[in-house]
């Protein structure tokens, strides 16, 4: 099959970029989208041109590195999957495909399709952890966890921190990411000690990084490769109010 690509190119250190057109022929519909970009890059290298920079690592939907916006959709047209899990059979022959980086003030473009998501790392550093003494792992059954809470914590822990929620949100808000990380730890017994400071710090850091506010549109949850629920954001709001009211 043939694809007509419009790819965002932006040189390192430059403030602005532009779309470049590339036509790829004789593609297999069984190829993954990232393999198609690999092929494009091989062609570019052969012609002594600069290959397209894009983020990827595991290529199986678990690391959260891949971060492309395809025809306006973060991670492409499918729900519940990352762009590394997208195949060319999802496109029509001779389709025009626009590929852009995740766009947000808090995600500055490094080069082409690669953005700097360390704002998310700084939110984790502010409170997305639990403090425990190191040593041999404790016996897992020594801390009982209620079934419902374990399930809910687990579905939030599924967040791979890709930032698609920010990318799709009309406000570039990181609410879904922060609320998933906060929910994951605040629901579990191990997270109780730092529950309040975690809510205050993570929300404070999110604010500092320049993400937008939440309008409750739900686009984040629909674009999330792990389909994290909007309910997590309500929980974050609750936890933040509680922590604020009881802090001194």
């Amino acid at each position, binding site marked *: 099959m043939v694809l007509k690509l419009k790819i965002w190119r932006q040189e390192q250190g430059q403030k602005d970029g532009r779309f470049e057109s590339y036509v790829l022929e004789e593609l297999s519909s069984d190829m993954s989208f990232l393999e198609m970009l690999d092929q494009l890059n091989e062609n570019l290298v052969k012609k002594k041109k600069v290959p397209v920079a894009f983020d990827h690592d595991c290529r199986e939907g678990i690391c959260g590195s891949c971060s492309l916006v395809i025809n306006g959709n973060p991670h492409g047209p499918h729900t519940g999957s990352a762009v590394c899990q997208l195949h060319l059979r999802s496109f029509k022959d001779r389709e025009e495909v626009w590929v852009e980086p995740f766009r947000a003030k808090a995600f500055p473009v490094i080069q082409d399709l690669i953005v700097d998501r360390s704002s998310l790392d700084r939110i984790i550093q502010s409170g997305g952890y639990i403090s425990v003494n190191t040593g041999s792992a404790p016996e897992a059954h020594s801390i009982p966890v209620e079934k419902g809470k374990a399930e809910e914590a687990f579905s939030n822990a599924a967040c791979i921190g890709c930032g698609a929620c920010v990318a799709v949100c009309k406000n570039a808000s990181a609410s879904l990411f922060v609320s998933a990380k906060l929910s994951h730890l605040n629901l579990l017994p191990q997270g109780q000690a730092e529950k309040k400071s975690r809510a205050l710090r993570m929300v404070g850091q999110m604010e500092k990084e320049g993400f937008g506010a939440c309008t409750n549109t739900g686009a984040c949850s629909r674009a999330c490769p792990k389909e994290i629920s*909007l309910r997590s954001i309500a929980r974050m709001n609750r936890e933040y109010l509680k922590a604020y009211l009881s802090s001194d």
Partner: protein
Amino acid sequence: MKKFFLFSIGQKYLMGVTGLGLAFFVLAHMLGNLLIFAGDKAYNLYMHQMVNMKASVIVQTGLLTAFLLHIILALILGVKNYFSRSEKYARQASGWKATAWYQKTLIAQGAVILVFVILHLITFKFGAHYEVVYEGKTVRNLFQLVIEVFQKPVMVIWYLIALLILFVHLFHGLSSSFQSLGLSHPRFDSWIKKLSLGYAVFVTVGYISLPIYVFFFV
């Protein structure tokens, strides 16, 4: 930690609370207006009672405060949200990942509602002052004013447009308030959505019935 209302979550709490307060007024005001179907006496006496009750000043001050806070916060958040994406996308999300048009245009809807309320107050609250006497008591004849206003096709059309915009605003706004206030639970979420839709339909149909009734049947 005196920063609650400087953070967007705190600001959204305030938007939610003021929004719910305004939504309550909109419902009560609609129900009061339905008295138009009970005739001039019931309508005028009710309006008279509302305007002259002891708590009237408190209610009006509260209403104005809520309205202004709601608008100011919307602007603050709107500016912040606008600047949180410096470079815009060339293509918009489509299908399941798209954001609904009525959620992208909340500020514009709010602006229309603001203009509507200002004109509305000029038309009615500060409009022509007719009087009528019931059993020796003189009250303002708002019934006559409503009839007069909705005899004009322009007014009927303008009210229909403004009320449909109010409908989408309320439909998103009510369920969104609950979410901002942290009120979400697997058992109630679908009911909150249904409540929001039901409320918005009820209120809109109620209001629209006035211009329609007056224009076609009076």
